[in-house]
């Protein structure tokens, strides 16, 4: 089994490791770096529980090898929380009861972080579409949608624009 060297930034810090070439990115985060806030719900790219931000784009850590994150700037729920940049969204999720078991929650927060970083005032339907790649089995989504809508509205009211280096991903070609 060939090993590869991978160097990237995770939650703002430089990380270097030698890993098996086939090691999944989510397993790398969870098992090697102890970042267990990234969850594996399906390991086939449908449920979105493993969503992380890579160079500002929400990606599925279960569909990538660790080696593919080489040179990237990766953020997980732990980093987004410590950094404080989604504190308003986290607060809104709790207030709107946008989580029950909470297993899907980090994935939703990361996906919503990407959407919110674009700025603007998305409609309810736009929020629902933006979140449609994440599955929640507990809430029926209403609390999650309300939390994201409210956070977007508050940010727009405060005049927060798109953040540098974030959110640009949604307008880039896929891939």
């Amino acid at each position, binding site marked *: 089994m060939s090993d590869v060297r991978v160097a990237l930034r995770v939650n703002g810090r430089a990380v270097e490791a030698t890993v098996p070439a086939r090691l999944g990115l989510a397993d790398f985060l969870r098992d090697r770096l102890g970042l267990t806030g990234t969850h594996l719900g399906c390991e086939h790219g449908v449920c979105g529980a493993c969503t992380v931000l890579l160079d500002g784009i929400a990606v599925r850590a279960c569909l990538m090898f660790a080696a593919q994150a080489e040179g990237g700037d990766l953020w997980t729920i732990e980093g987004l929380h410590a950094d404080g940049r989604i504190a308003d969204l986290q607060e809104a999720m709790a207030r709107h009861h946008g989580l029950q078991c909470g297993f899907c*929650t980090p994935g939703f927060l990361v996906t919503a972080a990407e959407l919110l970083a674009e700025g603007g005032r998305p409609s309810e339907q736009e929020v629902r579409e933006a979140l449609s790649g994440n599955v929640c089995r507990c*809430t029926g*989504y209403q609390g999650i949608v309300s939390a994201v809508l409210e956070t977007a509205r508050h940010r727009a009211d405060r005049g927060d624009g798109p953040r540098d280096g974030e959110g640009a991903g949604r307008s880039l070609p896929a891939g």
Partner: protein
Amino acid sequence: MTTAPEVGRDRRRKEDARLITGRTNWTDNIQLPGMLYVAFLRSPMAHARIRNVDVSGVLGQDGVVAAYTGADLAAEQGSLPCAWPVTEDIVIPDHPPMAVDEVRYVGEAVACVVATDRYVAADMLELIEIDYEPLPPVLDMEAALAEGASLVHSDKGTNASFTWPFSAGDVDAAFGDDAVVVSRRYVQQRLIPAAMEPRSVVVAPEGDGYTMWSATQIPHVLRLMLAMVTGIAEHQLRVVAPDVGGGFGSKLQVTAEEVITLLLAKRLRKPVKWTEGRTEGIQTTHHGRDQIQKVALAADRDGRFRGLKIELLADMGAYLMLVTPGVPLLGAFMFPAIYKFDAYSFTCTGVFTTKMPTDAYRGAGRPEATYAIERLVDEMAVELRMDPMELRRRNWIKHEEFPYTTIATLTYDTGNYEAATEKALQLFGYDKLRAEQADRRERGDAVQLGIGISTFTEMCGLAPSRILGQLAYGAGGWESASVRMLPTGKVEVVTGSSAHGQGHETAWSQIAADQLGVPFEDVTVLHGDTRVSPKGMDTYGSRSLAVGGTALVQACDRVVDKAKRIAAHMLEASEEDIEFEGGTFRVRGTPEPATTIQEVALATFAAHDLPEGVEASLDSDATFDPENFSYPHGTHLCAAEVDTETGMVKLRSYVAVDDVGVVINPLIVEGQVHGGLAQGIAQALYEEAVYDSEGNLLTSTLADYLIPSAADLPEFVTDRTETPSTTNPLGVKGVGEAGTIASTPAVVNAVVDAIRQFGVNDVPMPCSPEHVWRAIQEAGGEPATTLGRGPGR
């Protein structure tokens, strides 16, 4: 200190702080020194004899520690338990955790590999040689019961597990010549619970015993059952349910993987972990529903219901798991629902097939029953040319008639169907939507509007132990709670109920805060660990609050009683003169002297001056066993738009007015309703587990099994009425399953109502575009000008 009551407040959840930051403790997060990983080889055949299994190619490979076949573990693995032998002559086949000589569903474990790395364990499965002799799959319940059918368990001589009958009143008279009778055959499709957290189990040898962490709803039941299955003494087993990511019944189970992982840790004297992959989980975590319902409703010409006949076939799958045969029986009592009948007959036959076993899934028997009766009532309304709501009104139990004993022998203590319905109709705009429906029909719009009603009830708060005994269930239905008063006046609440998303830590804190007069923040709730909370019956059946919450109230009462004696001594008054309110003990009728419960806690700890014969502890336990079930009810209304050219269904609005009794935390209750609605709507419109003609599960990824996303669901309008339950001191009824039970028939009634004018009187679930389109085509594809222009018109 007197503050506003906690009960009834929208308290934000204590659980959320860790869940929104990723600082959680799921079973799969656990890493232990020297931990090994197990992977299971699973049957690709629905039914086959195992001629030979050879794991020798695995042994000696890098990273491999051991490999075992079912035969290797046959002497110690026991048989997975069924705790609900519903009849005396029930057929319960042996259920080895790993198959020994025959496999009976795709996904059944046949061998396992233990390695130092999860990836290596998975790789090695390919090196196991296995020789199967194919046997005929048994996939259709009706065919399985026919003469000469192939057998799932050849030694049993039948594919029928049991037949359970119930009858009350003169059914023949009710269905006499003068009755209007509507008969239907409904299919409850097989569903996959699909909790977001995959199952996971870690077992570590510790001293002369074992600790198991498992993503389970039932740590207490699991410990007992593991002891009975493996022979490992109960006191040497500790089971911990750490953070658990949803269950919906699917983690109410004693699984093959839990038993085998325990046995591997025992053999290898090392910690062993197993976490399922999603496809593995979809194939081998128990499924839900799967019934064929032959149902008939008899009424007078003026719409008064007379009788109800129900014949069920319930697919057990290949084996009976923990409560597999009991699930349809929970429904037996609920078919009469909120209506009055002269007569009722019910019979259910459990049928073995070569599929994954079924077991409890959110609602468990009650959604199936509610679906059938609420669909039938709509069909009867068409037959009688009455408005479906008016037909319900004529037959439901009126609020002044409670308590009311139904034809199924349940005594509903309270309820007010009129009030919930009135509120729902107002929120929904029923008359206006009916007018729009008529307009669209008149115009022949491609998109038609349908209105669906579901006036439901359910039995919750499982369960009175006495009744469970009568139903041959293997255990009781009580729940326990303990309250520990710490010296500083802080409180530890221990509950035997084990939450996995329901918010017990918050709701139990609210209850204890009110009962003890302490701040909400001063309460910690401990649960889900047999060493911390040694007694419990766990979480399912909307029972936690009605049963476990009541145990907590009783334990708090005992703390206060003990504290009162000590406070009386401190205040130099007689105990009878002490009153307790808002956390303060006072001599009746005087503001001073007074002492707080915190001061009493400290004085009790110090124990320098306790009254004669009083122990130095305020800690108290209680175990509550309910006398009766609780009966939440509600009225749900759904408006669905159906594109008659494509068959696409879009939910336009959904109103749910639920009566769940007294509400501890409205925020949590609303969340439970929303989530329940999503799962019930999913059965109506999206989800179906599909096996092919060889018994392969086709829907074995989340790309094939369609769980609705945020974009698929509407915004729900929810409200409540409140008639307190009289079966517990909190007045609560339970809310975990209400939305799921009510919503499926509301949605399908709306879909059928939208295309009734085409001559359609049923659409098989899920009402996918294909099913809807076919229903229209099979009915002729053209709206009739006179036929069934909608109920009431």
